[in-house]
């Protein structure tokens, strides 16, 4: 068992995260990536940690600004080449950027393989926002095969990876198929209580877990 490096996630999972886990976070479209940014920031603070964020239809500048707005300083990680951007829409620029194209999935695999191979002696932590755009651009069967291979590849390295998916945009069969390949599935949603927006999270799938109720997600650095 390992810690996620993010107290909010560890609280939800009771510290029972299996080694080399692939975690799927199902969420509503448009939800912010605050939890994922905190996860990457915390896991790359020391020199043993390498992180990457794979995204679509954004630029690294926009993402770096979002880290800043959240009060997370990642300059050291970027300068020391321990935090990378895998841009699936080929719009980002800079030394920490690895470009690929969502409609040519082998380029995404190439980007991931390059990063994993060149950091194989380190703890690699990743956030991958790939599934929803990939499912929009390709047949679900192809994405299932691709994702299945990606999960197997990630497990050969010292990794902990969060995959994001917008659950309401996909049919149940596709979602179930994707879930079946993940070690842990978390479901998040936004609710409004007394004019305050709260993020709720529940464990939808994890070996040995019995608590499937929603709890409030509180982010503390």
């Amino acid at each position: 068992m390992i810690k996620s490096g993010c107290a909010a996630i560890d609280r939800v999972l009771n510290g029972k995260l299996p080694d080399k886990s692939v975690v799927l976070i199902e969420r509503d479209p448009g939800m912010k990536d605050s939890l994922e940014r905190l996860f990457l920031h915390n896991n790359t603070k020391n020199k043993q940690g390498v992180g990457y964020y794979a995204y679509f239809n954004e630029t690294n500048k926009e993402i770096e600004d979002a880290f800043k707005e959240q009060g997370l300083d990642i300059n050291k990680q970027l300068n020391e080449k321990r935090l990378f951007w895998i841009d699936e829409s080929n719009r980002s620029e800079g030394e920490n950027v690895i470009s690929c194209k969502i409609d040519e999935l082998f380029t995404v695999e190439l980007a991931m393989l390059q990063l994993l191979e060149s950091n194989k002696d380190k703890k690699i932590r990743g956030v991958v926002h790939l599934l929803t755009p990939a499912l929009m651009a390709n047949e679900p069967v192809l994405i299932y095969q691709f994702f299945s291979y990606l999960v197997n590849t990630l497990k050969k390295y010292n990794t902990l990876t969060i995959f994001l998916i917008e659950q309401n945009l996909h049919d149940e069969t596709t979602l179930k198929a994707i879930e079946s390949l993940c070690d842990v599935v978390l479901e998040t949603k936004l609710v409004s209580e007394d004019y305050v927006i709260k993020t709720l999270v529940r464990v939808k799938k994890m070996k040995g877990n019995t608590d499937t109720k929603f709890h409030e997600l509180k982010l503390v650095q």
Partner: protein
Amino acid sequence: MINLRKEIENLPDKSIVLLILNVRQYYEGILEVLKLLCNDQALPGIYITLNKPYGTLKELLRDRGVDTTKLFFIDAISQTVTQPKLVNHHVIYLPNPQSLTDISLAMNAAAESLPGSKKFLFMDSLSTLLIYNETQTVAKFAHFLTVKMRSLNIKGVLIALRQMLDEELIFEVSQYCDKVIDLSSEVIEIA
């Protein structure tokens, strides 16, 4: 005169070779390499064919003395013409040579299904990919193949036809390979 067999034989395990041939030597060249890998070294391998359909290719290889029993074929050309009739556990058919992601996924499945730790991949050919894809895409795919082969610890032979390649592509792909054997202006010495 270059002895192709010796050139390939002397390479360290898990090397990746770019083999540049001219049109006249094409079959001589691939038969020579396959005889070495399949017959002499008895390695299981993956043959990605973009030129000849699986049925025709397998017959040709067998007739010319190549042991095809440990070869797994990824055929990306048959379905561009007709629905293949020959379906078995030694072949995956793909829609066309443009679907590079399909080729990569088929390669994953094939590499996992082949027994043993020593195996090879035979890509026939980069030049044909150029008919269906942009040069930069082919270069990126060649890079992908080499990274993939290294991560899977398998030996690789990438075939290219001199007449169909531009120098820039050869230069780019050469950087990813351990050795470039350019026989396009040579006579192949058959052992």
